[in-house]
């Protein structure tokens, strides 16, 4: 089979290389292109170029690649499993620390009591909830949004210390 029949198929060497590129881009065998063949027949350097190109592409697909070790897939899945377990543990730990910090914060706030007048203290609890400074509430929000699995525990502990310092 041949294609690209053309009466005016004279190529110069630069055009030969460009055409070779486009033929290879289309995954067509260059030896079936009449223009390339015609030029290669008359031009030894281009014939050598074409031969080298063909040898290169034949070889690339034939280069033997060693197989990965037999338990490769198993190792990958094991690694993923271990990583997920570790992340899960870290998240859990961060949540526990956050819960502890939040409990400590609430306990400290309630223990300290509101700076309220005596008559207010006699009112039912629901009508005068402990005053938690807006700054502290904002910080608690930030903490809960920014807990990261890796540094969650350290981060939460530091924030608990920061809150305690602010409150005491």
């Amino acid at each position: 089979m041949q294609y690209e029949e053309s009466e005016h198929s004279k190529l110069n060497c630069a055009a030969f290389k460009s055409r070779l590129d486009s033929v290879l881009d289309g995954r067509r065998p260059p030896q079936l292109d009449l223009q390339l063949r015609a030029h290669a027949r008359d031009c030894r350097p281009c014939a050598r170029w074409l031969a080298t190109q063909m040898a290169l592409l034949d070889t690339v697909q034939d280069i033997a690649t060693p197989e990965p070790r037999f338990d490769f897939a198993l190792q990958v899945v094991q690694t993923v499993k271990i990583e997920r377990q570790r992340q899960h543990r870290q998240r859990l730990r961060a949540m526990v620390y956050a819960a502890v910090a939040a409990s400590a914060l609430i306990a400290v706030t309630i223990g300290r009591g509101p700076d309220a007048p005596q008559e207010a203290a006699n009112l039912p609890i629901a009508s005068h909830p402990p005053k938690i400074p807006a700054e502290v509430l904002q910080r608690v929000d930030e903490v809960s949004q920014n807990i990261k699995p890796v540094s969650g525990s350290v981060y939460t502990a530091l924030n608990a210390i920061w809150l305690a310092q602010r409150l005491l």
Partner: protein
Amino acid sequence: MADEVRALVQRSLAGDQTAMLALVDRHQGQVFGLCYRMLGQRQDAEDMAQETFVRALRSLKQWDCEREFLPWLLAIAGNRCRTCLANRMRRPHTMSLIEPIPDRQPDAEPARHLAEEVRRALRGIREEYRLAFMLFHDQQLSYAEIGAALDRPLGTVKTWVHRARRELIEMLRKREAVGEVSHAIRRI
């Protein structure tokens, strides 16, 4: 086949380890092959192939199921290999760990010899060129797939592949790696 992969991905996302195993098993040859050809060293290739799969399984949600899975996977592999090569450059003493390729031996069996020469030449070209060349000619991806995988315009990928071919040919010619040209010319 693409549907099978999608089903495996869905099951993997649900935490099914058998599906993960099947997904890795199905693609490990191509990923390892690319890593080996990029890095030229078995141990590094295995490490990077493993990292590729771990990252892929970790970020399966990010895969666009409208696209092919393999180009996405190979793009991760390509990035891992480039990182590995950059690390090697920063630690030049590790270059000695690269598996040695024997110097040109005229008496060696021609096909094996040519394969060694091609491997050597591949190591001598720019990483981007090598990656694009291998994805196009070895993994048989289209330019569009390579462009999407490497996040580069189609024209850039084409240029990389063309330059890779030309540089490889120049290197092989300089080393006279393709001995019997007259035989090849006869095929033309």
